[in-house]
């Protein structure tokens, strides 16, 4: 007795239709997969960037970062260290303010490397992130972030050269921010001298009194000192740097283009498929299939192509994101985040746009007259 395992369903028919032309199905899916690769790779990278920005804002448990107002990029912020500290500590709710200078200098054989200047007494002030060694006690001692340590292939007690000057590595730290972990931390006055920025810092990390609202403190700082900008969350970072927003926009533009191209490929394939199957569709109409069922069959096929594209594209997207993050320079600040979001997004977009590509062919299939189709050779 047959178990019913060969019961025909619309889904089974769809699978057969996709399987009928394996090469064409694969190539079409590959076309859509390019878009999936773009979405997965770019989205995981951008998500990593945003997470890193968020972690950088809250480094050492700080609630706010204070930058110079009206700047084009965060790196260009220049604040007078003493004057700004005085302004900030005068605000009710500010517990303390730690000035940091951001700079990039040639290190070993790297043309530019991210250097963070912090006063020796401020190092480790917000919590102990040290994973090896100790904090520096003099100008010629440095800390390495875990990423910088890996990139430079140095460790505690090794010497490294910043602008050909030797520094002793005394500790390795790890934070939650890949940006900070990609840096070398050096005594602030030493970096100010190296960067010819005596008395200046880039940013202040502000710790807010636990009884006060950090947002309200930030607003008060901006109100009293219009020359300052307070950033409390990654979503506010555009106030000091448009770069990430621009990257976000570019990523979406590239992904969108890739997906549109994929959608056109699906449209072309499904159109050809409908033309080839005119007679078959006519038979289906003649035996009582409704237009809706014919449309469903074509749409399901397109969704199947989208699904295959996701299966092909997701691993490739992960590979591309990892490859990008391992490139020189990029490895210092890129750490893709592989949570479910980008994959679900890729799945949704691939299927929706594959289906979108199939709408016109499906409409054509639904319009096929059975009498004409049965005459079709």
């Amino acid at each position: 007795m047959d178990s019913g395992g060969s019961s025909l369903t619309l889904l089974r028919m769809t699978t057969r239709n996709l399987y009928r032309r394996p090469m064409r199905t694969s190539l079409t899916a590959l076309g859509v997969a390019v878009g999936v690769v773009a979405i997965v790779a770019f989205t995981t990278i951008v998500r990593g960037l945003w997470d890193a920005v968020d972690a950088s804002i809250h480094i050492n448990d700080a609630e706010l970062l204070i930058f110079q107002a009206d700047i084009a990029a965060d790196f260009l912020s220049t604040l007078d260290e003493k004057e700004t500290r005085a302004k900030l500590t005068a605000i009710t709710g500010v517990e303390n303010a730690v000035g940091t200078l951001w700079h990039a200098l040639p290190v070993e054989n790297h043309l530019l490397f991210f250097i963070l200047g912090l006063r020796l007494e401020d190092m480790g002030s917000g919590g102990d992130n040290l994973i090896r060694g100790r904090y520096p006690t003099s100008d010629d001692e440095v800390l390495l972030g875990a990423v910088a340590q890996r990139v430079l292939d140095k460790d505690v007690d090794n010497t490294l050269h910043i602008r050909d000057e030797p520094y002793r590595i005394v500790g390795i730290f790890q934070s939650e921010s890949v940006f900070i972990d990609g840096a070398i931390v050096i005594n602030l006055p030493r970096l100010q001298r190296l960067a010819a920025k005596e008395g200046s810092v880039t940013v202040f990390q502000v710790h807010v009194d636990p009884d006060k609202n950090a947002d309200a403190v930030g607003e008060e700082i901006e109100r009293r000192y219009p020359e300052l900008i307070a950033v409390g969350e990654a979503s506010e970072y555009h106030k000091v740097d448009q770069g990430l927003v621009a990257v976000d926009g570019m990523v979406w533009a590239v992904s969108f283009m890739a997906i549109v191209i994929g959608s056109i490929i699906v449209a072309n394939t499904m159109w050809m498929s409908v033309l080839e199957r005119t007679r078959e569709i006519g038979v289906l109409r003649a035996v009582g299939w409704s237009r809706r069922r014919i449309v469903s069959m074509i749409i399901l096929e397109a969704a199947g192509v989208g699904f295959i594209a996701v299966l092909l594209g997701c691993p490739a997207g992960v590979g591309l994101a990892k490859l990008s993050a391992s490139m020189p320079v990029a490895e210092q600040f890129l750490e893709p985040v592989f949570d479910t979001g980008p994959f679900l997004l890729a799945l949704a977009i691939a299927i929706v746009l594959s289906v979108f590509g199939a709408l016109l062919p499906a409409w054509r299939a639904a319009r096929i007259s059975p009498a004409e189709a049965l005459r079709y050779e």
Partner: protein
Amino acid sequence: MSDNAGSNAVVSARGLVRYYEQGRVHAIDDLDFEIATGEFIAIRGPSGCGKTTLLNLLAAIDRPDRGTLNVAGYSLIDMSGAEINEFRRTVVGLVFQLHNLLPDLTALENVQVPMLGTNRSPRQRHRRARELLDRIGLTQRAHALPTVLSGGERQRVAIARALANEPRVLLADEPTGALDSKTGERLLDLLDELQRDAKTTLIVVTHDPHIAQRAGRVIHMLDGRFVFESDAADDLRM
């Protein structure tokens, strides 16, 4: 045209007209006829005389331009889209000259195709298809694709597909046209048997005098009209 059907008519047409090319070609030209439940009708005539057009009208895959056409209580002139689908699915079964099986589906699956969209469960559809394949002697070929079936086997599967939803009228367009005479004879035996058992009305369009020989009535068409009607014995003498 004589009326052999009386009140028992499953098909009735009055003033039926179907034309093409903006009225220049009258494929069906003012036909009046009735067909009784359970009749076996053969429609003969030269190519282009309107046989297939008539069959398409009866199957509701083409629409008349004028007149009335009723099949099993459905008026084929003014049916909605949903009614047409239901009619095609449940009232008529179609057998084409070329089997028109779906090439990627097995024999068993092809027979299930018209049952998709009915209220039969997948298991019921499967069981029904199995029964039909048993009935036409293709149990062992249930999982074969059409490409590996012989011409006669394909046409038998096509008949099983046409019978899937237990239609009241079975329409066949040159069902033996692509078969050798021996296979064609066997297929006709099967059609005959199935039609008698199910008391289905069978309307066959054919050039083949052997089919006409088995029919209760033979209608001869020319230029879209019925020119005369004979019984099977008359037809053989012609």
